[in-house]
């Protein structure tokens, strides 16, 4: 493998890891927001 390929691979690996982590945070945020809304609705109805 050419040296430039290693350089490309290293930088790509960093961006892929970062993108995966950001995606994971975003999807967890979305799920929690939905859960909060659902629980608030149940509580409002119950009160």
């Amino acid at each position, binding site marked *: 493998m050419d040296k*430039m390929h290693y*350089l490309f691979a290293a*930088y790509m*690996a960093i961006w892929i890891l970062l993108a995966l982590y950001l995606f994971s945070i975003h999807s967890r945020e979305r799920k929690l927001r939905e859960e909060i809304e659902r629980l608030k609705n149940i509580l409002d109805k119950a009160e």
Partner: protein
Amino acid sequence: MSGKAQYRLDILLGILLFAGMSFALYMALIGAPTERTMGDLQRIFYFHVPAAITGLAAFATNFVSSLVFLLRKNRRWDALALASAELGILFFCMVLVTGPIWAKPVWFVWWTWSPRLTASFILCLLYVAYMLIRKSYEDPERKASVSAVFGVIAFVDAPLVWFSIRWWRDIHPSPMLETGGLDPSMRPAFYACLGAFLILFLYLLRRRFCLETMRNKVDGLLLRLDEMR
């Protein structure tokens, strides 16, 4: 902090991160001079080393937050400890992936069990264990206390990572910043990348901390619902 102030802080951090990362990428790939022996391959160093320093800063944040949690028993410190441990793992994953990619053409092996590499690998595993410990407890108070104690103990490995290349003979490059081994023309690129990684850490830490606050809110709502039934 009010919702509007939080939104402004998010925007400010986002702009800083975009500008900092763009500048860091430019400096690392174009602005910095090409190294004489390794050529362009050396440019991996500009992201590899800042990722390692930021990872250690994340684990240090976990250590301090765990200690403060044990003293004050405030759940916000536990949330900060969890957020920083997760980010430390992320940054050390970057280090453990980019290191072998650099090592293969230079050392002709992907991996070797040298003191620095071994200590870094163990440090990452310790914090993976920290996350697993958190998953194994149901009771939030017990979970926070046990993981805080583990976080304090796990941090013992971090100075080993930092000092291993000073204390033992190692194939890993020697500490260039303190010994003046890094050429002055390469320093602006290095500090630009380090700055960008620290902003990235703050940005992610804030988002991950907010996520944990939301999770605590869900726990609170579930508790209220249980009390009503």
